[in-house]
């Protein structure tokens, strides 16, 4: 990219013409007065929303400029957004569906099949002996067996609660 290799002298000479372009005579005599009178009118205090956006979020401002310049882009952007929403809704619907045969336990007494809370409650009521084993429950929290302590003292942290209800 050596400047000397490319002869830009003619172009530079041509660009000199720009220096001869001058505003109407007397234009600069009143320029500063216009600025000062606008400042005195309090215009200096206001800042447009566009200017604030340009300063705070230039990327958003340029995105808006693109939308403004090419209306077709807005259409394409909106279509993509709708497509994403539809796809999102479809995939969410699929992931919510329970696969067949996963929740098979059914006590049959007032419990809703597939609901671990109602199934646990009904199994506790219907078969207390069975509930102590809690083997039938599919609830992972409930089915945890108490692990034996390393020091042979099980569940020392748990104390029997005594409730003295005074009347």
């Amino acid at each position, binding site marked *: *990219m050596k400047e000397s290799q490319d002869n830009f002298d*003619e172009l530079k000479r*041509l660009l*000199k*013409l*720009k220096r001869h372009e001058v505003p109407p005579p007397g234009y600069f005599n009143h*320029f*500063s007065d216009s600025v000062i009178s606008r400042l005195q009118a309090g215009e*200096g205090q206001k800042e447009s929303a566009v*200017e604030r956006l340009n300063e705070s979020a230039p990327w958003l401002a340029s995105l808006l400029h693109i939308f403004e310049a090419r209306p077709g882009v807005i259409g394409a952007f909106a279509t993509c957004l709708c497509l994403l929403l539809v796809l999102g809704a479809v995939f969410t619907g699929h992931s919510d569906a329970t696969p067949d045969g996963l929740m098979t336990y059914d006590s049959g007494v007032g419990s809703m099949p597939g609901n671990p809370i109602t199934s646990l409650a009904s199994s506790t009521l219907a078969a207390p002996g069975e509930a102590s084993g809690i083997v039938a429950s599919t609830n992972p929290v409930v089915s945890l067996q108490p692990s034996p302590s390393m020091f042979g003292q099980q569940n020392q942290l748990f104390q029997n609660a005594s409730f003295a209800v005074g009347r």
Partner: protein
Amino acid sequence: MSEPATITDANTPGGMLEGDLVRRARHGDLKAYDELVKRYQERIYATIYHMTSNHEDANDLAQDAFIKAFQALKSFKGGSSFYTWLYRIAVNKTINFLKTRKNKYNLSLNDLDFNAENDKDLVALISDKTPLRDASLSELQKKLNEALLRLSEPHRMVMVLHDVQGMSHEEIADIVGCNIGTVRSRLFYARQEMQGHLSEYIK
């Protein structure tokens, strides 16, 4: 032969140093700011005009730039000169405006001054070198401005500041906010593209 001494009165805004004027303007002294506007109005206007090729737009933008600068004077830390800082505001305003301008080729050109017709280089350019020998200076002016508008804003800005306004690479880098290498590279590609657009007038 000694040069005549310039008489300046440090108590009037006209005789004050830039730093003093800025300090006073920051405290709301509009007379001091008026002096600052007078000092830089021509250069700021010219830069914006060469970027937009439209007198009315340049007038509005130049005024807006000075108003914006007054608003922001409190945030001016003095890290660069007031002139560079003011230029930066004007350049950013112009580039933002050009992005939103609907009609890109809305020319409203200023007249050429009397000296243009006496410029040997320009006269030679339209009489000898070009195939269009009857091309007038105003035609050439129109073609030149149209070609400038075809450049991207960053390329045009660098070309205007360097080749038209005669600024150094360092000054431009400071104003535009990029390194000197980028300025050089933009200038090279801008010139190359301009040469292509104006091929009938060059060579």
